[in-house]
Every structure is written in structure tokens, then in C-alpha cells.
């Protein structure tokens, strides 16, 4: 949450003249082929037992088998539902608190110390405490995810409301805007880029700890639990297939949620945070 100046000159590398999409695809695939080849060589040489270091085709076979039997989609769905509900809770509470802190001096004085104390503690450190208080299962997992992603949302909404130019507020008031219209037409649009940034950071944070929370909270379904449970049976192939799904979901979040959000903010408001 610091604004570095001079970020505008980072553009994607210009591609060589005449480089078509095919060449680009080949260039992107090349490192994966090298690393995959190294993995295969090590796996087939038998330096490590195949159980610990399965070849790629075994991982792919497990992936297909678990997907077709519906086990993997079920785990993934439960993880996504948990992520979604925790994040929705955090967005609701976080934006409300943030805006309140930005608008009212009293609310700021009261809430800021609490936020400042809670924020520097890594969310996972609360996990055992929440497990004790709420019992194992879904409730502590969702609350913890919400708790962790609320902090960036609060901070950014608060900063956003405070960044609304005083002169806009005063001119709107001079033109006779009442509180409700001031909020709806001046404060909210002015703070929105910051709020969106906060939501993006909050979701990223939630995603980063959710998998670990699932491992600790002993939920019946979920990708984290799938990986953790597979460790008991030394099913390295299942674990790696689970990690692949986690990577895919992370990538999808990145491409379908974070980047469009950032693009939208940058394009609509011509700013970058």
C-alpha cells in the first residue's frame, strides 16, 4: 500500500519483428518442456521411489481419474464456496467499516487502534484459536478467511474515502447536495478505485491462506484437505494433481478477476495503485 511513482513505463516486452502467435506459444511452452523433461528423467531413472516422485503421466492419469469420478470437482467446488463466502463477508464488513472510518472522525479514532493491532498478525496464527472457539469444520474456516481478507479491504476503503478531494465535497455541498446524494455521487465514485484495489488484495490474501486453513480445520471436502489427507497414504500423485488444480484456480482468479478489475480501475479512472 505504497504508491511508487513511475510505474507507467512497464510494458510487456516488444516481440521480435514477425513473431507470430505460434512462435510466442512455442516460446512460452519451451521452459515447461525443459522442466517437464527433467522431471521425467529423474522420475524414470528411479533415483527416488516412484511413490514419492511419480512420473508426469501418472499424475495426469490420477488427475483424469479423479476428475471423471467427480472427486476433484467436489473438492474444488467446496474450496471455492468457502473462498466466496469468506470473501463476501469480508467485503461487506470491510467496506462498511472502511467507509465509516473515512467519514467519521469518531469512528476512525475508535476503530483504527483495533485495526492496527489486528493487521500485523498473520491470519493463520489465529487458526488454532478459532478452531478452539468455533469447533472444527466450515465455520472457523470461513470466519478466518473473512478475518484475514478484511484488513486490506478496510485499509483501502478508509484511504479511498479520505483521498476524495475536499473541494469536490465542498462544491457538491455548495450546489445543495444532501448527505445521501453527496455519498452516492461524490464519495463513493471517488473512493471506488481504492475500494476495488482493497477487494483485489483481500481476495488474493484469502486465497493464499485458505488452502492451509483447510488443512488445519479438518473440513470434509476441500483441496487443502485433499492434499493433506493424501499425505497419510503417501499418494504423492494425488497431492500433485491437487496442487495442479490449486494452481489452475489461482491462475483463473488472476486472469478472470484480478487483471480485469485492475484494467477496469486503470481505464475508468486513469490511475494505478
Amino acid at each position, binding site marked *: 500500500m*505504497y*504508491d*511508487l*511513482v*513511475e510505474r507507467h*513505463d*512497464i510494458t510487456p*516486452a516488444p516481440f521480435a519483428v514477425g513473431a507470430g502467435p505460434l512462435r510466442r506459444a512455442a*516460446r512460452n*511452452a*519451451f*521452459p*515447461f518442456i*525443459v*522442466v517437464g523433461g527433467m522431471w521425467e528423467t529423474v522420475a524414470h531413472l528411479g533415483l527416488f521411489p516412484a511413490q*514419492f*516422485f511419480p512420473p508426469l503421466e501418472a499424475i495426469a492419469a490420477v488427475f483424469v481419474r479423479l476428475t471423471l469420478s467427480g472427486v476433484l470437482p467436489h473438492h474444488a467446488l467446496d474450496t471455492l464456496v468457502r473462498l466466496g463466502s469468506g470473501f463476501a463477508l469480508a467485503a461487506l464488513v470491510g467496506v462498511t467499516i472502511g467507509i465509516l472510518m473515512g467519514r467519521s*472522525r469518531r469512528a476512525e*479514532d*475508535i*476503530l*483504527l*487502534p*483495533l485495526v492496527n493491532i489486528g493487521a*500485523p*498478525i*498473520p491470519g*493463520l*496464527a489465529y487458526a*488454532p*484459536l478459532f*478452531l*478452539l*472457539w468455533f469447533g472444527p469444520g466450515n465455520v472457523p474456516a470461513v470466519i478466518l478467511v473473512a478475518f484475514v481478507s478484511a484488513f486490506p479491504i478496510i485499509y483501502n476503503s478508509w*484511504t479511498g474515502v*479520505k*483521498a476524495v478531494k475536499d473541494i469536490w465535497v465542498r462544491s457538491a455541498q455548495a450546489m445543495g447536495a444532501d448527505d445521501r446524494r453527496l455519498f452516492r455521487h461524490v464519495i463513493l465514485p471517488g473512493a471506488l478505485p481504492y475500494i476495488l484495489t482493497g477487494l483485489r488484495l483481500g481476495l488474493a490474501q484469502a*486465497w*493464499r*491462506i*485458505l*488452502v*492451509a486453513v483447510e*488443512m*488445519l480445520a479438518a473440513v470434509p471436502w476441500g483441496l*487443502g484437505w485433499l*492434499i493433506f489427507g493424501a*499425505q497419510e497414504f*503417501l499418494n*504423492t500423485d494425488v*497431492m*500433485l494433481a*491437487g*496442487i495442479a488444480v*490449486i494452481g489452475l*484456480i*489461482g*491462475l483463473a*482468479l*488472476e486472469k478472470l478477476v484480478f487483471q480485469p478489475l485492475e484494467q477496469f480501475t486503470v481505464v475508468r479512472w486513469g490511475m494505478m495503485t
Partner: protein
Amino acid sequence: MTADRMRSLRRGVITLLVVAATYEAVARSGYFAQALMPPLGIVARTLFDSIVDGTMLLHAAATLSRVLAGFGLAVAVGLPLGVMMGRFRSVENFVLPLTSALMPIPSLAWVPVFILWFGLGNTVTILIVFYAALFPMLLNTWSGVRSVNPIWLRAAGAMGAKERALFWKVIIPGASPFIISGLRQSFLRAWIAVIGAEMLAGSDWGLGWVIFDAKEFLDTDVMLASLIVIGLIGFVTERLVFGSIERATIYRWGMARPAKG
């Protein structure tokens, strides 16, 4: 201090007192078992005792050494690799696709696999911290080197700077705001990862392990005391260490300004 700030301070203190008093009242009401919600006095006593007899300090030292080892490794790999990515197109073409594939995987997802491969203990924790801290370092350094104004490079070249002088006198200072913010982000990630990794792959020391272990015995006071220590260390590194590094370097050089608010 103005009257305005005095009022803020007074309100802040009152809030904390009210929250503490509410907690204390609930804890003493016996509505929840005392094992689950110990009064603040007991938490303070536990914290004090564990600091005096040295166990808390040993746990903190174990966690800090793990986080520093993993973080140091990440900087040692991420910084040169990021610079090379920024300078050489072929390195960038090779590393960037791998980075974009690995980065969306949360570091803690690897814990069970690493446990199978390396066994419980320090290796797993340090590697997880390394994984968590590597990508922010790498990407920030890379963008930093890429963002060095080409005019500076050409000007230095025209004035006869050799490759080596160019690197130390132009590229590194030019990229420094990004590198420093990369260090900060990396450390933040590393700090989160080390607590999670210690919980999942705990050996017998470390703040994350102690919290997780205390849960088995319902030692909620130990958990809360460790939480306080974790929060303090996080606060000190974030505000004091990295804050003063930024003040002494990039703000002083006028390359970035502190965020508002």
C-alpha cells in the same frame, strides 16, 4: 501535540480499555470455559513467565532464524535472477512462464509434498518460506530493472560508462524503489508462510508450532501469549525495520513518496 490529536489518542485508549474490559468480563462470567477464554491477567502472567524462563525467546529465535534463512535464500536467488531477467531477453523468456505458472499456487499448499520429500523439520519450513518470498522479490526486481529510464542508460553509455559501471551506478539505483518494496513484500509473505509451515510441519520449536501444540492441551493462554509475540515481531519488522530502510533510501532520494493517510 494539538488538542485534536489528544482527542484521537484519548478515544483510542478508551476503545482499547473498553474492549479489554469486555473481554475480561466475558472471560470471568464463566459463560465460556476458562480454558477457552482465559482472563487477561493469566495471559499476561503466561507471557511474562515464558519470557523470563526463556522458552518464548527460544521459540521466537527459532522462528526468526527460519524466516531469515528462507528470506535470505529468496533474496540471494530472486535478486540476481530478476536482474538477469530484466537485462537478458532469453532469461526472461525462460523464467517468466514458469513464474506465472508457479506463483498462483499458495506456498502452504506444498507443505504436505515437501514433508514427504524432506521429512519433518527445518528443511520444509525454510523451503516453504523460500517459495513464498521468492516471487515478490523476483518480479519486483525484474520490473525495477525494466523501468530504468532508457535515456539514463544511453546518457551513461554516451559518457563512456562500461557495462560494470552502468550496472552499479545506473541500473541498481534506478531499480532500487522496486527492489526495496520487493524486499518488504517478500518479508511479509515469508512471515505469514513461516507461521503456517511451522503449524503444519512443526518440529519442536517455533511460534507457529507452539500455538498449534497449545491447542492440543487447551492452553489458550499460551496461544494468546504467542499471538502477542507474533504480532509484536511483525509490527517491529514492518514499521521499524522496513519503514526506516525506506526513509533512509528511496524517500530521501526522492524516488517515491509515502502513501497518504
